[in-house]
């Protein structure tokens, strides 16, 4: 099915099941510990060997000698694999550095060996017996000093310009010109990258934890030099991904190589201390923002430049994208530059580009509002645009940013905010409020599904879509139930298997809308097939209460499966609507913080997000997504930083004690409001994504609240107390 004209009324609009805040259907499996995560597939593999990864001890250079003999002779060891013994390996399309290093070392903790043993403990003990000698090479580890040598990234589209920014900015009566920095950040998901690999001849099955099954099946095949059809990936449950599991990582490749070498299935999870330097991270940015405005608050010129770094062949953190679309302004420019750094590989993390970009842009807007003496919400409203500012003929399909901000202001009590900073005290706490716009584009991706009406009357859905904790199982079941006129209990959903039809996968907040649209397409086909089987007119057949009705005729749905299950498959592909219309999601983040007047400790007191993101397929799971994203955004604002040792070239705080992310005590109160919205341009579901919208702008809202509380502006994330302390008011 192709979606190329705006959606009209369809069975989803009944909203009997879709749009209801239903509990997630996989909840009981998770709360009772029966959800089969990759490392725990005892059901699939009874007696695996255990793999343990040895990471490189240097950031850049080469291995000059390696002695694995003691490890091989250690108790219980089945095999040791290194680059020397692994045979020729390719590299996946989505990998920058090799997943098994040596003799060249590209980054710290790049895998250099994997040990397989009868037990995990034996593998771990043996790994420490491997002797590696290195020759260090000089590396570049500091973005600030590499910045001036940064170049335009590969695709040539890195810069944008409309009008004459420099002239307009120079002429603007009110100017803002500030530089902001965001640090490297880790996904720090609960479940580490983990895989079990089993070979059957030259066919490989990987039970793994991966967000994008089809991409990754291809990359496993490419890395191992196998035909794609010889690789099967199974990933029904994922304990957090956040973009860190979009790609194949060392666990999968080393488990496969290890299983081959050991002659038996191998399970392997990346050790927590390896997670931070061995896998991908969100790259640090340096961002310069210049905005020119008239005294009454109209933006006339807006420019955003961003610098980030990555290994050779890697990509930039695209932090300037939002500035192209968020606010009006005639003369505009963006610029993206990429430096070569020898740190671990940078790549996507929840709202890649957008999250750090808005951490800068939405503070800049707050600063501009102060210069103009205009309320920051009013300034945003003054500069709202209903069309793409670069291409005014291209409207937004829906844009309720103003409504989000107004609703939020009302619910949050924004009117009580003091425009002057450092005015509100509550005991020893300085109290402030901050706001930021949330904005992220809605992408659509081709997505397929297979649906089967069983003889039992259950409809089974199969798609390689993944559920990374987001609620995919539940919204796919809701979609199917709505389409087929069944209660949700009569729908079974099977996900994350490369033998199922290729889906959109979980990434870029496109998963919910795209994958349910694919299920919609398959259900449309099933409805037609069922109606035809029952001798009813497919065009007028209604599906409700487990029955199919045309006029006065009504037959049980299950009757169509009387002589065997009815299976159909289809996909949704998307036409030009995304080009003719800008599809985006919007929100407003509101934050109140307290800052200890003595110690400058920063504590969030309450948060509110108001979101407009198309039809909300399940308000409960969508709310969870936004709440989680707000927590992550708060972490980015206040504590999350992969600290670079600029001498040795590695992320120093590579465990969960050193890399702090917020705990429950950090955020006592969160609220989420979804505005009523349907977007017929997005898909027949009329839905959009929320999982990344939720993090966009949060960090800036926190930083703006800190400024409002203290009068201290910090432009270098995370905003920690040491950056405030010297400017805090003197205390008796």
């Amino acid at each position, binding site marked *: 099915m192709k979606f190329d004209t705006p959606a009209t009324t369809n069975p989803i609009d009944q909203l009997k099941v879709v749009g209801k805040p239903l509990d997630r259907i996989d909840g009981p499996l998770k709360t009772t510990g029966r959800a089969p995560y990759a490392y725990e597939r005892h059901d699939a593999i009874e007696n695996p060997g255990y793999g343990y990864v040895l990471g490189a001890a240097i950031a850049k250079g080469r291995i000059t000698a390696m002695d694995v003999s003691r490890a091989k002779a250690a108790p219980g060891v089945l095999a040791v694999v290194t680059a020397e013994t692994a045979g020729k390996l390719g590299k996946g399309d989505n990998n920058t550095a090799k997943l098994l290093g040596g003799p060249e070392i590209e980054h710290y903790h790049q895998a250099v060996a994997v040990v397989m043993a009868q037990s995990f*403990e034996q593998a771990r003990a043996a790994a420490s017996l491997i002797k590696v000698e290195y020759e260090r090479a000089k590396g570049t580890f500091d973005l600030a000093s590499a910045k001036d040598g940064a170049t335009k990234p590969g695709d040539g589209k890195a810069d944008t310009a409309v009008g004459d920014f420099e002239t307009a900015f120079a002429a603007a009566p009110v100017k803002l010109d500030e530089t902001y920095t965001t640090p490297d950040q880790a996904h720090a998901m609960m479940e580490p990258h983990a895989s079990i690999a089993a070979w059957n001849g030259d066919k490989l099955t990987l039970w793994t934890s991966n967000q994008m099954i089809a991409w990754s099946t291809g990359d496993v095949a490419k890395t191992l030099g196998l035909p794609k059809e010889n690789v099967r990936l199974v990933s029904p449950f994922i304990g957090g991904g956040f973009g860190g599991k979009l790609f194949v990582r060392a666990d999968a490749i080393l488990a496969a190589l290890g299983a081959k070498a050991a002659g038996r299935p191998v399970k392997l999870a990346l050790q927590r201390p390896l997670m931070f330097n061995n896998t991908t991270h969100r790259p640090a940015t340096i961002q310069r923002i210049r905005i020119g405005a008239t005294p009454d608050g109209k933006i006339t010129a807006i420019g955003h430049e961003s610098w980030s770094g990555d290994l050779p062949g890697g990509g930039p953190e695209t932090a300037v994208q939002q500035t192209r679309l968020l606010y009006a302004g005639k003369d505009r420019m963006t610029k993206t530059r990429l430096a070569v750094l020898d740190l671990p590989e940078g790549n996507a993390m929840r709202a890649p580009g957008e999250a750090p970009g808005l951490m800068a842009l939405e503070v800049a807007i707050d600063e501009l509002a102060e210069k103009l003496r205009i309320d920051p919400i009013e300034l945003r409203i003054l500069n709202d645009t209903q069309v793409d500012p670069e291409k005014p003929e291209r409207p937004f399909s829906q844009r309720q940013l103003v409504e989000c901000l107004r609703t939020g202001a009302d619910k949050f009590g924004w009117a009580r905010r003091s425009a002057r900073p450092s005015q509100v005290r509550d005991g020893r706490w300085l109290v402030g409020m901050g706001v930021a716009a949330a904005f992220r584009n809605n992408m659509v991706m081709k997505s397929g599904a297979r649906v089967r009406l069983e003889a039992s009357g259950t409809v089974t859905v199969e798609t390689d879509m993944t559920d990374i904790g987001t609620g995919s199982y539940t919204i796919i079941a809701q979609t199917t139930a709505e389409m087929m006129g069944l209660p949700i209990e009569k729908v079974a959903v099977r996900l994350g298997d490369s033998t199922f039809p290729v889906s959109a996968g979980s990434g870029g907040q496109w998963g919910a809308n795209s994958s349910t649209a694919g299920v919609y397409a398959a259900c449309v086909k099933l409805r037609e097939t069922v109606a035809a089987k029952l001798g009813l007119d497919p065009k007028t057949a209604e599906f409700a209460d487990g029955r199919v009705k045309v006029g006065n005729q009504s037959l049980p749905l299950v009757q169509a499966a009387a002589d065997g299950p009815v299976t159909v498959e289809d996909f949704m592909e998307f036409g030009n609507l995304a080009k003719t219309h800008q599809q985006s999601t919007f929100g407003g983040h509101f934050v109140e913080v307290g800052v200890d007047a003595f110690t400058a400790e920063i504590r969030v007191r309450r948060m509110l997000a108001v979101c407009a993101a198309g039809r909300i397929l399940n308000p409960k799971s969508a709310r969870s997504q936004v709440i989680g994203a707000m927590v992550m955004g708060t972490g980015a604002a206040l504590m999350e930083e992969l600290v670079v040792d600029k001498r040795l070239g590695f992320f120093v705080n*590579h465990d969960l004690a050193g890399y702090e992310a917020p705990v429950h005590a950090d955020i006592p109160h969160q609220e989420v409001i979804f505005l009523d919205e349907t977007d017929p341009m997005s898909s027949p579901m009329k839905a959009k994504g929320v999982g990344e919208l939720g993090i966009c702008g949060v960090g800036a809202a926190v930083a703006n609240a800190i400024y409002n509380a203290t009068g201290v502006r910090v432009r270098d994330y995370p905003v920690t*107390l040491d950056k405030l302390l010297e400017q805090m008011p003197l205390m008796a």
Partner: protein
Amino acid sequence: MKAFAYERARSPREAASAAANDPGARFIAGGTNLLDLMKLEIETPRRLIDVNGLGLDEIKPTRDGGLRIGALVRNTDLASDKRVRKDYGVLSRALLAGASGQLRNKATTAGNLLQRTRCPYFYDPNMPCNKRRPGAGCSAIGGFTRSHAVLGASEACIATHPSDMAVALRLLDATVETVRPDGGERTIPIADFHRLPGDTPHVETALARGELITAVTLPRPLGGQHAYHKVRDRASYAFALVSVASVIQKDGSGRVALGGVAHRPWRVEAAEAAMTQGAKAVGETLLAGARTTSQNGFKLTLAERALGAAMAQARA
């Protein structure tokens, strides 16, 4: 992790003697720190001597009006003990500021004192560290040092001691009771228990090989207002950037000790003469001789301001 032998000790003396005879032996109580270090092969004991069953888990009044806390009393039990809460509030608060509920349920009084540093370079076996391998050098110096010591550090080590409980015990002038491998007993004033790093940062306490902590004794209560302010980047489950333990009397006199600033809890009794003159006056002596890096200088300002907060609270 290396393979190791495991045994249960039958008496404190037997445990001490067994440990003294085997340099590869370690006591294990709650294991909340040791097991993590063993997994990373930072600690590689050949033999673990389990001291959990030795009956050292009672809190009893002493003859001179103090409390004797068994070495195996769990942090949760100590923090919630009525006598501790009433008379030694600073200790209860310090304990509750540390770790998480699950860890406090396991962690013991003696084990808490013997925690090892959380310096990230100590935790990465690829990085030279004088604590892990004496003479190897210190990779923290010149690196990421935001959390490191500003007082009493050396050219060999700038690590801090992570315990909150120990800061309160230092403030309260606790004494550590031990049994030696020969069966002899001794008491060590808490001020002498933790060492500064000097040239031997791997030697962290006054304990001799095999010597086993049996109890920690608190002298009679001090009265006054007790406070423990642990300053950290997140609200819970984080180590202190700086912590301030204080007991302040009605007249403004009192005691103060700092955590997060040195290789041991930091108290300078002479500084306490200035308690009635405000935090700055106390800080002049308490923080004298401080040496900071480009990243941790804020700790001095922070310590003084946190002490100011404790004083303001005591006046309120």
